[in-house]
């Protein structure tokens, strides 16, 4: 895979603009806007997790919705069956996601390109099939009645959409901070090197498998976080969330935004989700248009919106 977008300054500028925009819309928007923003932010977290392994690790996962599902279902099970407050179960679900990723990653991280895609797709579908039939996880009906985190000890009520959106924004900022630090740290640099030439790195004594496995785990943990937040936002979870097309749409989001630039993933998630939502209100055959859009983006927008922004900035002379 070719070199990916990397420009820490622009990255920071874009995320600041996006966060400020989301706060403004959140404060002045109505109930649905706030709900919608929280949804976009959760998708952005998911997109960041995909962006991280696809761009830094060179692993394109079509089964990442599995981790979204693992996060969501663990939160649901922990908070309903075991009575653990959902704030804490978020952390537990991240932990569970990482553990499962460690187990899976041990076997699959060294598979190359297309094989990795097919195997993650099949594993994700295995999870989907299992969820669909599992009685513990509510089968095709899913699970309902998950509570949002109880933060009343600091005097706020997360059942307000306004507050929950802010809560998600907070998580987004944490994830952004974490991933941008990792990208700039030796781990990120190592991953860049491994992606560009795996054989050479192992020839000079680098731990390719360990680094790739770590990247896979980090990404899975973040996807689990997104799942956990998703289930708290909606209050229910259905197996649809774990279908592989969710991962596919996530990958489209990062292509739209620009691969490798963490903020691009957020930008892409916002744009794709808004277009999907608006289009499905206007026309009946929106899936046709979306599919066509995906194809055109893949064919003609190499660096996505991020590339466009960089191009405009260059034109303006910054």
């Amino acid at each position, binding site marked *: *895979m*070719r070199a990916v977008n990397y420009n820490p300054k622009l990255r920071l500028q874009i995320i600041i603009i996006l966060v400020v925009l989301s706060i403004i819309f959140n404060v002045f928007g109505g109930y649905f806007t706030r709900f919608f923003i929280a949804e976009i932010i959760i998708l952005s977290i998911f997109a960041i997790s995909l962006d991280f392994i*696809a761009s830094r690790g060179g692993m*394109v996962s*079509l089964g990442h919705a599995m981790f979204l599902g693992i996060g969501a279902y663990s939160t649901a099970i922990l908070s309903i069956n075991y009575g653990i407050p959902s704030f804490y179960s978020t952390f537990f679900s991240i932990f569970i996601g990482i553990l499962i990723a460690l187990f899976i990653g041990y*076997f*699959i991280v060294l*598979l190359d*390109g*297309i*094989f990795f*895609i*097919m*195997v993650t*797709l*099949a*594993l994700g*579908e*295995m999870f989907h*099939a*299992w969820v*669909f*039939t599992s009685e513990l996880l509510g089968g095709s009906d899913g699970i309902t009645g998950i509570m949002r985190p109880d933060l009343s000890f600091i005097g706020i009520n997360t059942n307000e959409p306004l507050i929950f959106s802010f809560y998600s924004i907070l998580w987004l900022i944490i994830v952004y901070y974490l991933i941008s630090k990792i990208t700039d740290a030796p781990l990120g640099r190592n991953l860049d090197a491994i992606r560009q030439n795996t054989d050479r790195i192992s020839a000079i004594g680098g731990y390719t498998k360990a680094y790739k496995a770590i990247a896979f785990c980090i990404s899975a943990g973040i996807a689990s976080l997104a799942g956990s937040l998703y289930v708290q936002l909606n209050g229910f979870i259905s197996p649809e969330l774990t279908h*592989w*097309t969710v991962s*596919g749409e996530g*990958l*489209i989001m990062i*292509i739209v935004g620009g*691969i490798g630039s963490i903020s691009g993933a957020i930008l892409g998630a916002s744009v794709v989700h808004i277009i999907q939502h608006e289009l499905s209100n206007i026309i009946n*055959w929106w*899936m*046709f248009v*979306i*599919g*066509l*859009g*995906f*194809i055109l983006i*893949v*064919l003609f927008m190499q660096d996505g919106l991020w590339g466009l922004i960089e191009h405009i900035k260059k034109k303006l002379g910054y």
Partner: protein
Amino acid sequence: MLLIQFLNALQFSMTLFLLAVGLTIIFGLMKIVNLAHGSLYMIGAYVGLSIWTYFDSFWLAFIFSPIITSFVGAFLYYILFRHIQNADPMRQVLLTFGLIYIGLDSVRLLWGTMSHSISAPDLLSNSIMLMNEAYPSYRLFVIFVGIFVLFFLYFILERTIIGAKVRASVDDPETAKLLKINTDKILFYTFSLGCGLAGLAGITVAPILGVEPGMDMEVLVLTLIVVVVGGPGSLKGALVGALLIGFVDSFGKVYIPQLAQIIIYAVMALTLLFRPDGLYKR
């Protein structure tokens, strides 16, 4: 009872084989995983449905729907696939992912969301007695189609000049080009053939499984598993993988129904554990 199950498993395996062989040939030549392969299978079934409805002849549908599907494939190759041959895997996969959406919505717009059924031709609509058990003769016909395609492809690939050229282009495209083999043309025809086989699978199973939107997704993952287990790009791998997955799935559903959903994935995981490149590596 066992014989019936055996034949059912064989019939399912042959359907999988028809699908997987198209996908695996395309993968072998172009190194592209065509996620829209399931959509072509669906289009094959729907085109067959239309022909069957208008001309009231299953055999016309059986002959012309694979041909029309291969034209669809040729069209897709011409406008899309030949441009992304050297792109990275992610872009290739996402492009075919976009095609799934288009395929699904096109079918919905053209044929509606109702599920339809095609009845088997008169010749094959009755049952045959096999060891005191009645077995629908149409299912035997599906097995026969699968075996016929297998031998046909084997003959073409191993015993003809065209097949030799295809094998050369798979193994070493650059040397093949130096030897004045037109690899682009071979890619084009093989891609169309692969798509046509998906259409053939669609119309062949239509009398058994019916025709409905969403049938593409049901087979896509199974087909991918067959290809992964068998080893991408290998004809023999597609056959062995299809038989393995088909039999494990059919018998698993009867003997251990509570694990039926997961067992084929377990087979895939085990295969990958011991043979990361599939059973038959190219």
